């Protein structure tokens, strides 16, 4: 079982060129900040490294941070063998939100990423099937969980507001 600091050190040793940061001043567990376009490579290492074996993507969720102009994705990883956990966070520009998909690493991320795309409009590069998952396929009013989202007046002739 490894602490977040040890996992962070391992990542830094193996990815010296990457910008990585560990935020420990958190009321929750420490958060490891990574870069959005490298997250797939980091995750593959986290899954396959014999000291880490993060075989379980427990959660993947998108967050809108309009004050800093960012859209972020949180990854909660766990290892069923070593029982350790880590939280990763990547941020991307709100106007061009692109994050590398981790579907090649964990199949479970497929629908999670589709949800983040559906509700926040985060584009996951190299996702095999990036469609809306909850909202109707022909929903063209935008992404409902963005803070500046405005609901449309009508959808297919049905009045939407109360």
């Amino acid at each position, binding site marked *: 079982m490894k602490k977040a600091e040890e996992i962070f050190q391992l990542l830094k040793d193996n990815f010296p060129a990457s910008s990585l940061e560990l935020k420990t001043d958190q009321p929750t567990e420490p958060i490891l900040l990574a870069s959005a376009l490298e997250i797939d490579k980091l995750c593959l290492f986290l899954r396959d490294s014999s000291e880490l074996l993060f075989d379980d993507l427990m959660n993947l969720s998108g967050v809108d941070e309009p004050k800093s102009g960012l859209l972020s994705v949180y990854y909660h990883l766990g290892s069923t063998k070593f029982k350790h956990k880590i939280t990763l966070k990547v941020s991307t520009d709100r106007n061009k939100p692109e994050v590398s998909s981790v579907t090649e690493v964990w199949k479970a991320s497929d629908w999670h990423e589709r949800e983040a795309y559906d509700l926040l409009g985060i584009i996951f590069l190299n996702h095999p099937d990036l469609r809306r998952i909850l909202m*109707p396929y022909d929903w063209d009013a935008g992404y409902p969980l963005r803070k500046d989202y405005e609901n449309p007046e009508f959808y297919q002739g*049905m009045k939407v507001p109360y």
Partner: protein
Amino acid sequence: MGFLDKEFNDGNIVVATAEDLLNWARLSSLWQVSFGLACCAIEMMATSASHYDFDRFGVIPRPSPRQADIIIISGTVTLKMATRIKRLYEQMPEPKYIISMGSCANCGGPYWEHGYHVLKGVDRVIPVDVYVPGCPPRPEALLEGLLKLQEKIRNESMIKKTA
């Protein structure tokens, strides 16, 4: 109604108007589309089960809208589901009736303000006969709604459809 008045005095003769007879037949075998949406559907299933026994009013679930008389909208109607509900309703043969069950189907319920995906009342897409309030309504409330619907059918006229 009273068309069974003379059943016991005059042998096997029953005197009734055709309207009364048809209405009685209709209200006594309201087959429902077996269709549920959310937590209200759990209460609807409880109503169908042995303790509350919907069947004693002639309500049997039918797995096809083409063989059904009523549809109970039991739960939150999302915009995505609304188009499907409309299609189900259009597939039902006349005469057909609708019970809107619970606050969500009535008016959007707790999603009335921030539910970007919720239709604020199923009566925006199909005509509702009886609204059953509650969140979710108890089986007794749904039974009361059904009795109200039966009352409505009992007073229907062949010439003019009131529902």
